[in-house]
């Protein structure tokens, strides 16, 4: 998927064990991000590298700035009044705040899935075709093809093939969330950001959705915010722990959940109070 391996110039931060990401290409990188909402500081010097073709989970207590960080990568923070971001954000080695960056193109490449399933009130088909139409695709045959591919990739094709023209809102919550995923996949992003995508789903839909996320990690770089520690443990290859606006620890998920390096991480994972 991503051929060029962008070696980060960032010197190994103390949050990450030495050599952990050696030889991996880096899909997303945040360097010293400071983010303010008006006068409230939400992020306070975040460093993070997200490797390509892996699932990276972002965990941490409520309000520690996970969603804010996520929105930095596709500059969705631009849509929030009073929100100011400083620092370097790179997507596959290119600065997203560069002058020559076109937001629509950036956001096409960095797909996003939200907490609450948000299908457009259109048909299933039109939902998936939405982004394609935006980018100027008109031919019905091509559209059909791409829609099917995306729905298959989102493990939804079999469930909706007979009702592509039905309203997307008639799907169950779990299906809706997978539809939203298909919609994001249709425009062929390289990176997927997910903000607590399964927190509104019931346990069985959650498991199915996690299954989907894992299967996607073969082709896409996934950055997944979750409140649910177990979920991070189940799906992520790497886990980053955030606390009060900083990434405190970044490690392979196995290591994080059996032997975290920081006291704070340990406390959060094992449910202790400081």
């Amino acid at each position, binding site marked *: 998927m991503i051929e060029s391996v962008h070696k980060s110039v960032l010197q190994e931060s103390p949050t990450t064990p030495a050599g952990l990401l050696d030889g991996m290409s880096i899909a997303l990188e945040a360097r010293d991000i400071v983010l303010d909402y008006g006068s409230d500081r939400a992020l306070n010097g975040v460093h993070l590298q997200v490797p390509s073709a892996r699932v990276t989970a972002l965990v941490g207590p409520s309000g520690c700035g996970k969603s804010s960080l996520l929105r930095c990568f596709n500059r*969705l923070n631009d849509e929030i*009044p009073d929100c100011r971001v400083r620092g370097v954000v790179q997507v596959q080695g290119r600065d997203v705040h560069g002058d020559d960056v076109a937001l*629509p193109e950036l956001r096409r490449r960095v797909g996003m899935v*939200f907490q609450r399933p*948000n299908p*457009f009130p259109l048909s299933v088909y039109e939902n998936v075709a939405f982004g394609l139409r935006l980018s100027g695709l008109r031919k019905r045959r091509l559209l059909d093809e791409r829609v099917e591919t995306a729905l298959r990739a989102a493990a939804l094709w079999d469930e909706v093939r007979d009702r592509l023209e039905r309203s997307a*809102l008639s799907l169950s919550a779990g299906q809706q969330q997978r539809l*939203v995923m298909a919609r994001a996949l249709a425009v062929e992003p390289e990176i997927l950001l997910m903000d607590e995508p399964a927190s509104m789903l019931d346990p069985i839909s959650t498991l199915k959705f996690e299954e989907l996320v894992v299967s996607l990690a073969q082709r896409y770089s996934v950055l997944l915010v979750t409140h649910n520690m177990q979920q991070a443990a189940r799906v992520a290859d790497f886990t980053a722990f955030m606390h009060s606006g900083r990434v405190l620890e970044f490690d392979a998920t196995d290591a994080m959940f059996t032997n975290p390096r920081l006291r704070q991480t340990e406390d959060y994972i094992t449910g202790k109070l400081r």
Partner: protein
Amino acid sequence: MSERARPVHAIDGAGRWLSAGAVGLCLLLLAGLLALLVQQASSAFAVLPVEVLSLRGDPGDSLLGELVEVAGDRLVIRGSEWRRQGDAYRRIAVADLTTRDRPQDILLIRLRDGRHWFVREAVYRSVERDEPIVWSGMPAGIVLHHSDIAEVIAPNRLDWVERCRTLLSRAWLFLQGGRAQAVAGGDGLLAALIGSALLVILMSILVMPLGVLTALWMHEYAGSGWRARLIRASVSNLAAVPSVIYGLFGLALFVHTLGGSLDRWFYAERLPAPTFGAGGLLWSALTLALLTLPVVIVATEEGLSRVPRSLRMGALALGATRSEMLWNVVLPVARPALLTGLILAVSRAAGEVAPLMLVGVVKLAAALPVDAEFPWLHPSRAFMHLGHVVYDQALSGNDAVRAGGRAYAAALLLLALVVILNAIAILVRNRLRERSRQFQDD
């Protein structure tokens, strides 16, 4: 668990019944209003019994006329209207009557200008066909030509089916009474209907783009800065301004200032007869557009704010620009709200009378604002309006009984129009709410 707290329950019951009673009263009032309108309107067209009355102390003469109303111990009788409508009412105390009769052979002759004459069948038949009709009892100098006769019926002989038919045909005649009648006797609603429709259409064309774009700006572009707050506050206050003030504003700005200037610049040759300098269709439409602007803006904004943030974010995150997001996602979702705004604006405009009285509506228009003459639409012309017909007929006219009936008929028509428009708006809105509940943030 078995102890019972009676006072609590008693209050509960009282509250229930009181509030249910309130709803009941509202429904009763609504039903009463409708019933009253229908009853009064139909009484204007009903076929009334014709009686022959002889009065005490006036042995030689007997009265022939329709029994219009029985008010306590008095009768109101309308005799033949030899000269003009409304000149033949007589109020008679029952006590003064000696005989009262409803002979079967009385004919009612309705003339084309709406006057009613009564005559015995025998007399009517005896008259020769070609000549002007004259019969005994007719005041001198009055002549009836055959071409003037619209309808001849025998009111006392009709069964109820025929009565209904007659009622409906009279109502229909009244409704479609064209310009000719309008000029002649004010008897007809077509001109008023056309005027109202033109007004509303013109107003919609003016208000919709402006209202929707403004709402979009307020909700989507301005953010929560001071400019948006300023406009929002202004619009909210605009909504609170009484409609008659819009009328005054329209009069002062559009008619007197703008219209006056236009006349001086372009129609100087016609002065002092005003062209745009007097009330007219254009100024009325502009005034109403201003009046309904808050309705459209508020409805649109409400619709926009019901579109969940998550949908916008979803579209943006897919790479849509802001305008693409608005056009492809937000406006389609908010479309029912726009429609509601439009319909509410239209029904408000259709029902407004007070401002129009200041800026262009007239009791009788010399010409319709549309005709076959280039440029077909004449925005400077004064026009007639249903609501104003109601007002006018209710308070004026020498034939109060008939005018009242006509006022009620016009009111019924107006009400039907407005209610239908509103019902559509409400249905659409409820549909919208149902739909938006599916993706509502909570």
